[in-house]
């Protein structure tokens, strides 16, 4: 992980890697060029058909009449379009409302995760209290406890919280706060802070910079790449979450799209339902295409971290 937020240019890296398994000299040999070229083409076709295919089918069927999708699902618009599916899903099936809920849940989860991960990692990496090692050990321990097995005690805690005499069912805090307890975020952030040059902190301290000023004016601005990575994964994870919001948000008017979709399926025609599915995917797909560098880098980082 590079400490400095320098944008990597893509080209040199590609050329460099092409020097790897297949050397530049090898590429001059016709057998290599044709053989690999064909293989790459086949791979691309497979990726489009298998990876992209289901998504394209969903996009097509979202604007096809229900009857066409049922009788000949793979025909391409045999009887024209049904744009009405989208507007019916949007207003009659209330996708607009559930989408708003999804956005509110995602932004709240993101905000809490960023606050907890940055402040905690800053304290553990830069301020270093004496008891920091104990906290770090307790954090790493939670990485070994899969989140899903805490479902039952967490649920009971939300319904009957200790000390407080109020239930947090149907309260967005019940979704936001547990999601902020992500040791993965803290560890990722702490590793990044650990690699920031200490001399800058020391210089700032000599110039009379206190711990709060150091955090806001120096550490955070230097951490833009890792903030981007943690942010896109926080937002995506919240968008994808299903089981926890299903348990703690019983009121349909508060539920996100992912929780509503299985219910919507029961009382809507197939075409409208597929339009609702497609509308759910628009934000994550567009977000991924725009911020693909953060996504792909973060996934690679995750592998490096786990390794």
């Amino acid at each position, binding site marked *: 992980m590079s400490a400095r937020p320098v944008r990597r240019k*893509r080209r040199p890296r*590609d050329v460099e*890697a092409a*020097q790897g*398994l297949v*050397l530049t000299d090898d*590429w001059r040999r016709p057998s290599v060029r044709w053989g690999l070229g064909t293989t*790459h083409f086949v*791979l*691309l076709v497979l*990726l489009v058909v298998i*990876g992209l295919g*289901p998504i394209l089918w*969903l996009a097509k069927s979202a604007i096809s009449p229900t009857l066409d999708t049922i*009788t000949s699902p*793979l025909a391409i618009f045999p009887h024209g379009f049904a744009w009405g599916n989208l507007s019916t899903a949007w207003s009659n099936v209330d996708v607009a409302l559930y989408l708003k809920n999804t956005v509110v849940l995602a932004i709240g989860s993101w905000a809490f995760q960023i606050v*907890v991960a940055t*402040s*905690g990692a*800053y*304290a553990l990496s830069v*301020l*270093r*209290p004496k008891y920091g*090692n104990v906290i770090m050990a307790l954090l790493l321990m939670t990485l*070994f406890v*899969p989140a*899903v*097995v*805490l*479902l*039952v*005690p967490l649920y*009971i805690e939300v*319904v009957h919280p200790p000390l407080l005499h109020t239930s947090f069912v149907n309260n967005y805090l019940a979704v936001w706060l547990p999601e902020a*307890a992500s040791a993965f975020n803290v560890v990722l952030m702490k590793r990044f802070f650990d690699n920031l040059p*200490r001399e800058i902190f020391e210089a700032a*301290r000599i110039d009379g910079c*206190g*711990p709060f000023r150091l*955090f806001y004016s120096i550490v955070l601005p230097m951490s833009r790449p890792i903030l981007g990575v943690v942010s896109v994964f926080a937002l*995506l994870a919240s968008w*994808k979450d299903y089981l926890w919001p299903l348990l703690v948000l019983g009121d349909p008017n508060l539920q996100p799209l*992912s929780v509503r979709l*299985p219910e919507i*399926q029961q009382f809507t025609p*197939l075409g409208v339902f597929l339009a609702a*599915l497609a509308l759910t*995917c628009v934000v*994550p*797909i567009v977000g*991924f295409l725009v911020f693909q560098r953060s996504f*792909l880098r973060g*996934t*690679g980082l*995750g*592998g*490096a971290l*786990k*390794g």
Partner: protein
Amino acid sequence: MSAVDPMTTERPQREAAPRSAVGPPRVHVGRRTPATWVQQGGLSKLIFLLPLLFVFGAFSWYPIVRLVMMALQHTNLVQPATWVGLKNFSEVIHDPLFLIALRNTAEFAGLALIFGYPIPLIMAVLMSTVRKRRGLYAVLAYLPVVIPPVVAVLLWKTFYDAASNGVFNTVLGWVGIGPQQWIQSQSQAMPSLVLESTWANAGSTVIIYLAALVGVNHELYEAASVDGAGLWKKVWHVTLPQLRTVLLITMILQLIGTAQVFIEPYLFTQGGPANATLTVMLLIYNYAFGNSLGASYGEAAALSLMLVGFLAVFSLVYLRATRAWSSQ
């Protein structure tokens, strides 16, 4: 790991540790009072740690303790909890569904390993040789990962329509294969779930391998070329050995992930047909929240704890068994 245990050793060890970058260096003059603690930045350290301590304390550490307690208690949220010892565990073990859930989860994990483990590796190695527009390949491979799992499952449920004009059955019809029952058949349901799960998850493994492949030392390839190694020999003798740490980690992570599979059996089949896709997580969910069994939080907690314990022991054994090979 240092030879001296930092927890038990006194001052010298601590002095060796890197100093805090902020606040004046700690001077041990006189007694430490709350005032000197604040002066030395102890308070601001605590303030920065508070969000983390609160959130993890309330939603991670406390629930872990609570999970262990609940496994030993009878709780129904109405009456006060009573301690019942290991009764919850014995009830779970004697539940006829327990063995079925274990077998199904093992089947899911095994099939996911067979389908899902080699494919991302082959794709990543091939993609690493692409010279132009490698980004396009990576984006296409990763795209299914950003689709919300609920959408992916419900979409594939439509594909698995058992009618002869269902999506997959139509495709099979093109090559002369008759319609299949897919998730409605006891024998095909589990492989169908694994197929969807592989589609949804393979992309992130591909990207992890691609990142690791960029890190392989190029001189090794050049040396292999000089020695006359062809493409396959280079893959076998250079690429794979260089990836072995990542390969071992992704395998254990995949096994841990698939052991907790929930959303696929829950939304595709509700554990059916005839419990053919009832997994451990689904059984935990049914104990705690399923109407048919009533709320048996104690049994759900006991089974959760058994799952964590199994995964922890399994990971330790796995890491120990592969340590020699991974750090060669």
